[in-house]
């Protein structure tokens, strides 16, 4: 596999591109789009170039969201869009700090949005394609063509459209019918350098009866005020099982917007676990389209905020067909002046009878200055369903703290015991032991 290569852009194409960008729009949007001016995708086939062009015309129509945009009401983007960025290839010498102890996995490394072959170790398994996205495009793989960018068009989200148009590289994983992945795939998505802008793009396709587990760590090495705008499309085939674990552990000066589109087919199981430990601004947009019967969907998220951290999870579960179950739990522990936002929408369409859909958001505030915004939403058009949603925000239960103290446990230990329990409970659907232990260790480190 080769790393992404820049090629000189033909003048004609450059003009085309600039014409599109220079349409009237806000200076901040222009400034953001300037970042991508030097990128050249002419090495890609016409098919993929056309997809990018389509996205460009979408970008043209869309404006930067403001706080009056409902979907972005509680997350202001000033921190992100007031800055100038550059797309730069970063240098990383070692991935040692980002490895998960005792995890046996295939390792795929992305640095600033570019595939790094030297640091990756992928053991080939028959029936599984694991390639950088750029390589996959060059290889003109049919499955890639049939799924790539199919779920992310015209969603009226500027950042998604920007990724559609200007993503650099990412990971394509496709597992054949009846195959079971021997080991998990661990994508280490690293950002580095100040003011860098990263746009990774993944596609995971699990064919009929297959089973695969993927971990993606979003981490940072020596870079301040950098921004990652990542997108993953996930297709879970008939009777297939796919588990995607997102581990967001960047630093306090990093910004992230990530978008996942998941499409589930008959009898499929999809589980996503999101652990967010840090980040000046972290926004996760997760949409799961359950477009077939007898599907199982699990969404869990844990966010631990401190200082000025801002973590925002927006989720949509769209039940379109009958006899499906979804379980959603997001929990936050917010300290100092951190903010947590949760907006979970569950749609149960008219034909989706016998749907069981459960959603919960619980937040613990550890300080008077911490803020939680929670908006659980259910839209039900079918009449024979079981659905519930609930949201709680509160402080640590003082009665319980006193109970533990009255046994000789210090107040601090009592609070930590309770936070640990609250937090660890959230991600019990993580089925990879080493990852589960790692997540718990990170929780313990935070609340020790």
């Amino acid at each position, binding site marked *: 596999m080769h790393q992404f290569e820049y090629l000189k852009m033909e003048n004609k194409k450059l003009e085309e591109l600039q014409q599109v960008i220079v349409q009237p729009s806000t200076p901040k949007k222009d400034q953001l789009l300037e970042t991508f001016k030097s990128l050249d995708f002419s090495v890609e086939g016409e098919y993929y170039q056309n997809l990018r062009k389509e996205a460009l015309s979408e970008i043209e129509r869309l404006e930067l969201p403001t706080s009056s945009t409902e979907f972005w009401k509680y997350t202001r983007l000033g921190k992100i869009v007031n800055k100038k960025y550059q797309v730069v290839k970063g240098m990383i010498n070692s991935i040692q700090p980002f490895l998960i102890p005792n995890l046996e996995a295939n390792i795929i490394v992305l640095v600033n949005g570019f595939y790094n072959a030297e640091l990756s170790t992928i053991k080939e398994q028959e029936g599984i394609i694991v390639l950088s996205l750029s390589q996959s495009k060059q290889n003109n793989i049919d499955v890639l063509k049939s799924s790539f960018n199919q779920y992310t068009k015209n969603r009226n989200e500027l950042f998604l459209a920007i990724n559609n148009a200007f993503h650099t590289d990412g990971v394509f994983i496709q597992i054949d019918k009846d195959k079971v992945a021997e080991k998990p795939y661990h994508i280490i998505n690293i950002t580095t350098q100040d003011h860098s802008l990263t746009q990774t793009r993944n596609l995971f396709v699990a064919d009929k009866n297959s089973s695969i587990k993927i971990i993606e760590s979003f981490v940072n090495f020596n870079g301040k005020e950098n921004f990652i705008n990542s997108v993953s499309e996930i297709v879970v085939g008939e009777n297939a099982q796919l588990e995607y674990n997102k581990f967001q552990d960047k630093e306090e000066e990093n910004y992230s917007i990530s978008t996942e589109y998941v499409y589930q087919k008959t009898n499929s199981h999809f589980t996503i676990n999101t652990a967010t430990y840090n980040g000046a601004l972290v926004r996760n947009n997760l949409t799961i389209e359950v477009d077939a019967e007898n599907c199982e969907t699990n969404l869990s998220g844990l966010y631990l905020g401190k200082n000025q951290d801002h973590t925002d999870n927006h989720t949509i579960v769209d039940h379109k067909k009958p006899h499906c179950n979804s379980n959603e739990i997001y929990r936050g522990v917010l300290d100092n002046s951190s903010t947590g936002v949760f907006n979970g929408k569950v749609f149960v369409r008219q034909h989706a009878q016998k749907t069981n859909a459960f959603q919960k958001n619980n937040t613990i505030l550890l300080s008077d200055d911490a803020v939680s915004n929670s908006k659980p939403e259910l839209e039900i058009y079918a009449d024979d369903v079981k659905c519930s949603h609930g949201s709680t925000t509160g402080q640590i*239960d003082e*009665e*319980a703290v*006193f*109970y*533990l*103290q*009255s*046994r*000789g*446990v*210090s*107040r601090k*230990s009592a609070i930590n*015991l*309770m936070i*640990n*329990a*609250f937090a*660890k*409970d959230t991600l019990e659907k993580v089925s990879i032991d080493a990852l589960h232990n790692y997540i718990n260790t990170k929780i313990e480190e935070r609340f020790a």
Partner: protein
Amino acid sequence: MLKIKNLHASINGKEILKGINLEIKSGEVHAIMGPNGAGKSTLSAVLAGRENYTVTSGSVTLDGKDLLELSPEDRAREGVFLAFQYPIEIPGVSNVNFLKTAINETRAYKGMELVSAKEFLAMVKEKSALVELDAKLANRSVNEGFSGGEKKRNEIFQMAMLNPKLAILDETDSGLDIDALRIVAKGVNQLKSPKNATIVITHYQRLLDYIVPDFVHVLYNGRIVKTGGKELALELEEKGYDWIKELI
């Protein structure tokens, strides 16, 4: 061991305890009885160090140490144990894990060596058997999903693990059927020694058939208005609390 002198305490500006005097020696069992609202639970809460009560005057010492100056955890480490009337459910916090933390923090406080895993497991096995608490329950989240009887047995199990100098049983009989009551009482009796003491707070005489007190105190309107032997409990049962009201 425990000396309470002229203890006054209030909550939200309302005085509940209006001058309690009580002395308890090692090896003794004291019962505190009284009608609703007399201040029984307030007394136990003040002794354990619950924050929402304000001690306005008086003193409480345990073996000469000023209890009122200590945080709730330090009181526990000094040997005060409160069995709650309504034990709290704490989802996700394992019963044995938190007890291990409690024991080790107490040992560290006293400058003792920490408990080994082996020693601790042996303790859990022995003490849970004492109150017939299923080992599975001992390992579960604190009181979560426990029945009323299981919660009370868990209180006594914790008491057995912590081996306190002074155990305060706050309405431990409430909500217990007769079998559970026997088990709980058996546990308490087995833990009795010449070195420790027990305060049993109760409404009814029934529990005192099983945990026989050396002294019975009647608490009424924030004061101890009558003290006697175990026969006082029977007299109270027979004559009711109105009898006490007439006495004053």
